[in-house]
């Protein structure tokens, strides 16, 4: 029998990029899970209902170990939507699909026209090697109202908030976060892999601050910074905070 096309309208498939948290487990998993529990315990609900990608690049593990890890994370309410950096042989139908290139992506790669030879180069001016194209301007936003409890602000670039961030609110930015008010909720900067990002606030009362995957919760923050104008940055792998005043 020949299948007859009765539906002239094709199914629409679209590509789209989303922001997901990436977890990078370390061996031995038992120790790593203890640390994860610690973070989750201090910041309840942090992983709940968030898309999480597991990055196992460079880990010497087998399929059973991976399945075990995904199961243990599932038991902690961490739902893995995909696995990055695993050999295809390790992933079966019972595991989340492989993900690759979890980097910032534009919607569609713009076809870069072959740089046409500068036709007649006037005189023999050495053509300076094409300066690296200016990074595509990422969307930065300015919020002119207080961020209320339960609200979530996200931008791929910088986030500037003219007002306070309430307890129970969160601000997530690919770039830096500037808060001209009190930070009482959570702020996560550089979430798209930008270790240069910083967090600034006029008054620090935060529940959690993080840059490029490194976090500090309220208890870990230096008590002397509380209530002060503060900035946070990364020094190598050390999460550092200092008074701005």
């Amino acid at each position, binding site marked *: 029998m020949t299948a007859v096309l009765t539906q002239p309208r094709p199914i629409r498939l679209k590509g789209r990029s989303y922001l997901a948290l990436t977890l990078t487990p370390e061996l031995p998993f038992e120790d790593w899970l203890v640390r994860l529990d610690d973070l989750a315990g201090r910041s309840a609900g942090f992983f709940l209902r968030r898309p999480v990608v597991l990055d196992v690049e460079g880990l010497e593990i087998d399929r059973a170990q991976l399945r075990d890890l995904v199961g243990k994370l599932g038991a902690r309410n961490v739902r893995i939507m995909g696995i990055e950096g695993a050999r295809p042989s390790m992933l079966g139908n019972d595991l989340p699909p492989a993900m690759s290139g979890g980097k910032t992506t534009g919607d569609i790669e713009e076809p870069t026209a072959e740089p046409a030879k500068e036709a007649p180069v006037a005189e023999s001016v050495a053509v300076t090697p094409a300066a690296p194209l200016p990074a595509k301007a990422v969307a930065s936003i300015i919020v002119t*109202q*207080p961020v*209320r*409890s*339960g*609200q979530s602000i996200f931008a791929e670039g910088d986030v500037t908030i003219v*007002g*306070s961030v*309430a*307890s*129970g609110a969160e601000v997530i930015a690919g770039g830096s976060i500037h808060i001209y008010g*009190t930070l*009482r909720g959570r702020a996560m900067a550089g979430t798209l892999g930008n270790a240069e990002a910083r967090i600034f606030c006029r008054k620090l009362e935060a529940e959690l601050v993080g840059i490029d995957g490194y976090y500090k919760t309220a208890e870990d923050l230096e008590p002397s910074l509380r209530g002060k104008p503060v900035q946070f940055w990364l020094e190598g792998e050390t999460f550092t905070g200092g008074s701005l005043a």
Partner: protein
Amino acid sequence: MGKVIVVTSGKGGVGKTTSSAALGAALAQSGDKVVVVDFDVGLRNLDLIMGAERRVVYDLVNVIQGEAKLTQALIRDKRVETLYLLPASQTRDKDNLTSEGVEKVIGALKSHFDWVICDSPAGIERGATLAMRHADIAIVVTNPEVSSVRDSDRIIGLLDSKTLKAENGERMEKHLLLTRYDPARAERGDMLKVDDVLEILSIPLLGIIPESMDVLRASNIGSPVTLADERSAPALAYFDAVRRLKGENLPMTIPGEKRGFFGKIFGRKAA
């Protein structure tokens, strides 16, 4: 066209119903035509506070479902001629409130009254979101303690996103009503101070209602506090709040700042 006010808070037990009744009565006492609508379907209390519990025949849900006319459900207050109550249903649940039904009722009330005051249930579910949906003005009732302040903050976020005004790109007029305020305890640090609450919520202050036995006494005799004892401290605070709501610019007094007899004398001498 009348103005629609929602009295809301997020947290329960902070004084939404007491404030709805007191503000409604105070507005009516100034001569305006007022209706107070109870949106707390299933846990109605406004009829008790307003002393009309034995006069409820039809309710909001009956009107929405077309079982009664609006005029049949409205209860006129026996003390103030221009004050009306639209009670909630005690036997149904909030699922009986439909968005279209509420819109129709509010629309009809707006054309008959100067003020439509919607007493919102606690929480952020259906009843609360429907109560705030058609409002022009929101009065956020908050107690000076952290859980109440955070819940109010959440509600303000919803007022700025889930209401008709917000969806049309307009700004909802919001006022803070600080209730159950005890200056002595705030001074001792047992309560948040007025400035702390204002700093966190950053919306204009409509009034500060002192913690007082008069409020409890008034609700037990089924009378809004502004009707029960017009000279009591909470009643005066509600009257001031109403004048501010109507656009008057009154200095904000923190109740309880009254000095004793000697304090007054020395205060004057020093001035």
